[in-house]
């Protein structure tokens, strides 16, 4: 949802003495960072916990570009709508994750998750797992620290995206 809609909902709740929303589940990952404009700062300011969905961008950030995807990557129709229109622009970011994963000898998913986890506004990314290694790899990302230079390199190729995940 748009940040202004969330701010409005909180305002309405407050005015009526209702419960305010305590968490925001938003679409946020290395190839979709539009949330950094308004939603992330809003939540940080208001003490709202961020629990991003698709932190691995439906798998695009979880494997080498040439690697075969999971059954989900073939059958998740909603997932396909999220990243197809910007696939070309996302390619350098995906390549950056691939490069760093190979340099540091870590699974791709750990690079992408470590990037989210280093953000103090992010409470917990929501990670799906259809193979046990998905789950174990995600937890192990908590032990991965990225240097400032690594973060800069990961972020540099990003370009503005049309809104994806809500309308």
């Amino acid at each position, binding site marked *: *949802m748009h940040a202004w809609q969330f701010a409005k909902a909180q305002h309405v709740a407050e005015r009526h003495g209702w419960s305010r*929303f*305590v968490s925001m589940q938003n679409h946020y990952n290395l190839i979709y960072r539009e949330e950094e404009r308004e939603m992330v700062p809003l939540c940080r300011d208001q003490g709202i916990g961020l*629990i991003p969905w698709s932190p691995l961008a439906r798998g695009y950030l979880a494997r080498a570009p040439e690697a075969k995807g999971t059954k989900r990557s073939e059958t998740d129709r909603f997932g396909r709508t999220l990243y197809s229109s910007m696939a070309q622009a996302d390619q350098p970011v995906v390549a950056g994750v691939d490069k760093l994963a190979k340099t540091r*000898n870590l699974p791709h998913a750990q690079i992408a998750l470590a990037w989210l986890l280093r953000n103090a506004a992010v409470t917990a990314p929501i*990670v799906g797992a259809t193979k046990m290694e998905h789950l174990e790899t995600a*937890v192990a990302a908590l*032990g991965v620290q990225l240097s400032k230079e690594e973060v800069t390199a990961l972020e540099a190729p990003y370009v503005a995206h049309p809104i994806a995940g809500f309308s």
Partner: protein
Amino acid sequence: MREVAGLWSGRIMPCVPLSSESRLSRGHAARMLIMEATMEYRRLGNTGLTVSRICLGCMSYGDPAATIAGSNLRWEWALKEDAARPFFKRAIDLGINFFDTANVYSFGASEEITGRALREFARREEVVIATKVWGVMRPGPNGGGLSRKAILHEIDASLKRLGTDPGRLVHACLAIR
């Protein structure tokens, strides 16, 4: 507000730094890292809830055949209960106490599997389950959406499928799209 917000970013358990050996080989690395990494926990926003920094998303646990009339939603990749259960056991063992599902995932099957697995493998007072309302659960009027009627009905239905009662276990996360 500011004081409470400070609490929100507090790290409760430190993460054990990695040794250089754990980066030796890629296949090995994931396994070794797990042994060395300690689960971290955070407050969920300004609430007092403590959640693990990895939330297990449960959309992939359900029923690949689940469908309702008038909807083209499918979860063809979803693992059925027998295949899904070990993921909950492992998640609990790894320190995960935060689980995300939705009423609409496999049209209720994801919540049922999540509820049964966590009742078996977890201490209910420790885990935080987030679920959602909005998606269409059945054809016809008020089958989805965010009216008061739909929200109250769906929360009851979700709690039943999760096999729990509010306040104790469920943090209802209302996803508005």
